[in-house]
């Protein structure tokens, strides 16, 4: 018993020491280097327009007008793409709520772009994991080109060219993706 009591001091001291090193020094060192070398990335890859923050190239926003490309559906509450409440839907594959949600999203797309046939790209009707996914697949972007071009009075080739400009094809891993916010900001600026 006595020998165990004698271990209290080393246990507490070691804990305090490691707390200081890994809980204070370590994050400060990483923040110091990151802020000095890569401030843009370390501060959230923020996009600015006329000196005002209009979003982050990494955080998706919600769009529902015909003249904008739509993002992945977001399950965050109370509003979609809430930066303070990242979350997926957590709906299981058999949950009727999942089928209702997808049914509603398909109906909304068919209403806003009438006369469009064919199956709807899956990423346009299923909620992302974070609720903040900034990307859609090239197929999901092309699915919306006709509608956006009509709403904006632009030729479709022009809109497709913009989609291409904001398509990112990774070198090794992952899928080609279209950054929705950057694409829409580009469209809004013209």
């Amino acid at each position, binding site marked *: 018993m006595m020998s165990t009591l004698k271990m209290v001091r*080393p246990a507490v001291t070691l804990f305090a020491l490691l707390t200081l090193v890994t809980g204070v020094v370590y994050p400060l060192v990483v923040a110091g280097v990151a802020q000095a070398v890569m401030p843009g990335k370390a501060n959230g890859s923020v996009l600015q327009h006329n000196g005002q*923050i209009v979003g982050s190239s990494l955080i998706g926003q919600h769009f529902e007008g015909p003249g904008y490309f739509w993002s992945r559906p977001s399950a965050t509450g109370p509003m979609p793409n*809430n930066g303070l409440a*990242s979350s997926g839907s957590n709906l299981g594959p058999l949950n009727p709520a*999942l089928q209702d949600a997808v049914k509603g999203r398909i109906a909304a797309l068919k209403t806003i772009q009438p006369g469009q046939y064919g199956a709807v790209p899956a990423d346009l009707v*299923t*909620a992302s994991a974070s609720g903040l996914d900034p*990307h859609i697949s090239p197929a999901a972007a092309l699915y919306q080109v006709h509608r956006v071009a009509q709403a904006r009075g632009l030729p479709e080739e022009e809109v497709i060219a913009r989609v291409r400009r904001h398509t990112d094809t990774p070198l090794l891993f992952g899928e080609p993706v279209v950054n929705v916010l950057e694409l829409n900001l580009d469209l809004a600026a013209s």
Partner: protein
Amino acid sequence: MNSSIVFQTGLYLLILAALAWPLSRYLASLLDGSLAARHGWIGQVDRAVCRLLGTDAEEDMSWWRYAMALLLFHVAGTVFVYALQRLQGVLPLNPQQLGAISPDSSFNTAISFLTNTNWQGYAGESTMSNLTQMLALAVQNFVSAATGIAVVCALIRGFVRRKASGVGNAWLDLHRATTWLLLPLSIVLALALVSQGVIQNFKPNQTAQLTEAVVYQQPKTGADGQPLKDAKGNPVLETVKASTQTLPMGPVASQEAIKMLGTNGGGFFNANSAHPYENPTPLANFLQMLAIFLIPAALVFMFGRWVGDWRQGATIIAAMTLLFVAMVGVEYWAESHANPLLVQLGMDGHAGNLEGKETRFGLAASALFTVITTAASCGAVNTMHDSLMPLGGLVPMWLMKLGEVVFGGVGAGLYGMLIYAILAVFLSGLMIGRTPEYLGKKIDAFEMKMVAFAILATPMLVLGGTALSVMLDVGKAGMANPGAHGFSEVLYAFTSAANNNGSAFAGLSANTPYYNLMLAIAMWVGRFTVIVPVLAIAGRLASKPRLAVTAGTLPTHGPLFTALLIGTVVIVGALTYIPALALGPIVEHLQLFGEVAR
């Protein structure tokens, strides 16, 4: 081609081996003390730390003393992490002015981070101040991983030493693993992640003007703050317009690096490694996956070096790799089939199941991450496991149920697998009628009792906890999904807690006093009913002589033993859990595809 699962898995394993092999050399010299002997300044720091602690750097602890040291160290951590959460409202580095966390949630989180589980009942961005994240949670990410390394070192010393009374010095092992291994690796990884877009700052949250305002409905609250109800008792909804978006800020990269390297898995944000500020690019995702398996794989190679026969380590790595590749195959196959009910509604099924997945990772990197994080005791997620297809959800659940021995947690994976190896040696010894021995140490009744204890304790917690919860109203209240999937949510929660994983079928509302308490018990008991028997085995083995290899010795390297080891793991895991799994994911799979066929 680039996104193909075969290419990604193959490249992943190649790079992992190329990094883990040299790291194992470093680990071996660091933890047997030869590094400190070779580089004087490292030895000086080590001795200075021991002086500060008031202990003797040369002390060799008995297994019991070693266990008590770890226990006291954990008690100090529990008190500190609990207190910091309760007091964060009046402490600095709290730009969002978040208040104190409830007692039951604070207790759950303290146990969760101490036991390397990192189960999260709370949502980080709206709960934890920067101070709590750094000083309480990130610190535990380091020291809980160091604990795993310390325990496996003690066990390996048990095999290596002859007629020895001690298994090492717990203080020195904890300090060396943290300061000379986890810390430098974390700094490098954190900066690499920042270069991909992971944030690292101490700013308050930023406000962005939206390009298109968001109109949404939310329940209206009355003057008393209670939600208003209409005559039928339904909540009254009001329409609200939001023209701004809040961008969360904080020291994320430093947390993220150790979260992966220490197989902890506790995210800064609620969405964990699916959040673009935690895991912004496919390359960042690849680095995170590498970081999860890096130290567990290096420790297995280190084991081979320490026992003086690299083939012993290679045999265990081979068993782990085979199980891993098989599980990746099943996971990818399950997820590449879209939900047939949604295809019926008019969704394109070619892309597979994308509910709860991020576009930038795609199917392959999502499936790979899911298997890696549950094979190890990491529990970080880049995919919402609750929305996986039924069999896609069975794979991570089963990997955890095996005890996370497929690479496994830092340290915990290897000592878990060595427990199975001792069992395999014992079983084959019975079959061929020889006294079981492993690495020259005779396996006696005492060791086998401890092995049985370590293997049986976790299933008791998982199955007992699940059974109790589905019988109680407080347990059933947490389920978010109806039917078999709701049962899976509870089963997953206890599996994850008792095996110290930390991932979740996150629909389960687990931040209630009932689940906070039950899961905290499962995490604590699940961690220490393995650690204490492992240390006891270590102490007993260390005191024995090492027998010479004879013609009658069953070799514990090579394909035969790899097959025996896999067989032992799979049979124990299958026999224990198939009945429970049949009630959850298996019946759900049959329902889902049966409904479509009808």
